[in-house]
């Protein structure tokens, strides 16, 4: 598994397209949000900025790269070749997705640290970490499911749009308008409850048990995504 992860890391740094979409673009967008934090804090809150940068990394860095990686590795039969070895399916997927997951987590950690230095520390760091982890797991699950519907790296540019754009729109909607209205709908949408959790963790003022309940919808999305992925994920191109 580690040898697959290492080779994947080498490939990420050699492929300029992946490097730009998974590293440079989310970092640039996040820098803009932090640079204009006064404007965005007035629009929503500091917690909203934290949520939107987290989902920018999650959607474009993690989710889109997961789908692109799996689709292109399947298309050029790299997945089939990996399955010709003694490596198990879980080990193969873990190896392939470990580098981008670690990179995304590091990116979120660095970006949030910068935000904290610029604007002040979050109210509950552990809750924030739980929110980030739940987002990462959800995006990985959705990535696996979407990869099952994606034929190639080019096709991934289309198939990833609904969830990439959708989660950022949901994060912005929930982050700016809060959950006083349409709470159930906002929390059930993918990214809705994770956004509320980040806002609560950053801004504070909400009892911990209430916030922890918000992990449930996100983890439900993980279950749905993994169940979908197990049905539609393919290891070889369609004949």
């Amino acid at each position, binding site marked *: 598994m580690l*040898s*697959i992860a290492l*080779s994947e890391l*080498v*490939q990420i740094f*050699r*492929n300029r397209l992946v490097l730009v979409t998974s590293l440079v673009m989310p970092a640039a967008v996040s820098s803009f949000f932090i640079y204009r934090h006064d404007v965005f804090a007035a629009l929503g809150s500091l917690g909203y900025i934290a949520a939107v940068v987290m989902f920018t990394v999650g959607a474009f860095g993690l989710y889109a790269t997961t789908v692109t990686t799996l689709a292109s*590795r399947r298309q*050029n*039969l*790299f*997945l*089939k*070749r*990996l*399955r*010709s*070895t*003694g*490596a*198990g399916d879980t080990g193969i997927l873990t190896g392939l997705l470990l580098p981008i997951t670690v990179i995304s987590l590091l990116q979120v950690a660095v970006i949030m640290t910068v935000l904290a230095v610029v604007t002040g520390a979050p109210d509950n760091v552990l809750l924030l970490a739980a929110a980030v982890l739940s987002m990462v797991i959800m995006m990985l699950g959705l990535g696996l499911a979407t990869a099952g519907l994606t034929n190639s790296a080019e096709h991934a540019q289309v198939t990833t749009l609904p969830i990439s754009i959708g989660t950022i729109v949901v994060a912005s909607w929930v982050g700016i308008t809060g959950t006083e209205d349409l709470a159930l709908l906002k929390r059930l949408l993918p990214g809705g409850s994770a956004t509320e959790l980040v806002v609560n963790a950053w801004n504070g003022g909400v009892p911990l048990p209430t916030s922890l309940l918000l992990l449930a919808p996100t983890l439900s999305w993980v279950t749905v995504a993994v169940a979908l992925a197990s049905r539609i994920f393919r290891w*070889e191109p369609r*004949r």
Partner: protein
Amino acid sequence: MTRSHWQMSVATAEIRCMASTPVIDVERLNLKYGDFHAVKDLSFQVRPGEFYALLGTNGAGKTSTLEVVEGHRTATSGTVRVFGQSPRDRRAVRPRMGIMLQESGFSPDLTVRESVRLFGKLSQRTDRVERVLGVVDLTRKAGTKVSQLSGGEKRRLDFATAVYGTPELIFLDEPTTGLDIQSRDDLWDAVDRLRDDGSTIVLTTHYLEEAQQRADRIGLMHRGTFHREGTVSELTRTLPATIRFFLPARAPALPLQATRENDGTFRIETFGLQKDLFTLLRWAQDHAVELEGLEAGPTRLDDVFRALGSD
């Protein structure tokens, strides 16, 4: 009998028993894709150290069969055992087998050395990357990205990863497609050395002469099942040998039944090549007839293969 002698006898018996156990045992294999029955009731065995060739017409089911035996696909019904275990049990079976796929499946962004190192490590066998690169003459290309390799070089890389660590069982799916003559010779030399080391080889190829020269046994597939199976001589003896020649105009009647081809050659099919050839030559001598372009030869695998298509 001393204890050590007894232990040695038991060990020898175990080795003999293991040697007689087929490396591959396929029994009544069926594979369907929806309504399409790709493989029908196929049964065969491959013994340790054997060179077995799986040949057939396009769409005969060779690749489907191989994919089930390699563990890439699940059979619709039937039993497939590799080293006595299910080929789907990758952890148990894969370290003992090397697979040269029909299509490469390498990452274009990795170098040749990185690719061999990665798949060598995943094979769980031990070997030296530089040695394996030397076997396929890719040492000078070790630092080159896979995307910059020619088709033939990719095939050699494919072979290198399949034979890393000298596996007990090696699948070669169209191994020489895209290779120049020198590379083909080098590859077959490497295969011969693997056989000397005791590896079992399973080959599919469209180059029939490669199978004819090397295979201990051949399974000829047609429409999802075996049309024939056996050694080259067993397969070819079922079809007649052929004598071909041109006859001058106004030649007397031939002593044997012959067919005139579209290009004007006469063809005699016979199961008694030596006797009939002698009869023909004696007739030509007696009548002072020059048999231009005379060719006589035993049945080749090509002829058996062509007979498949006409069935």
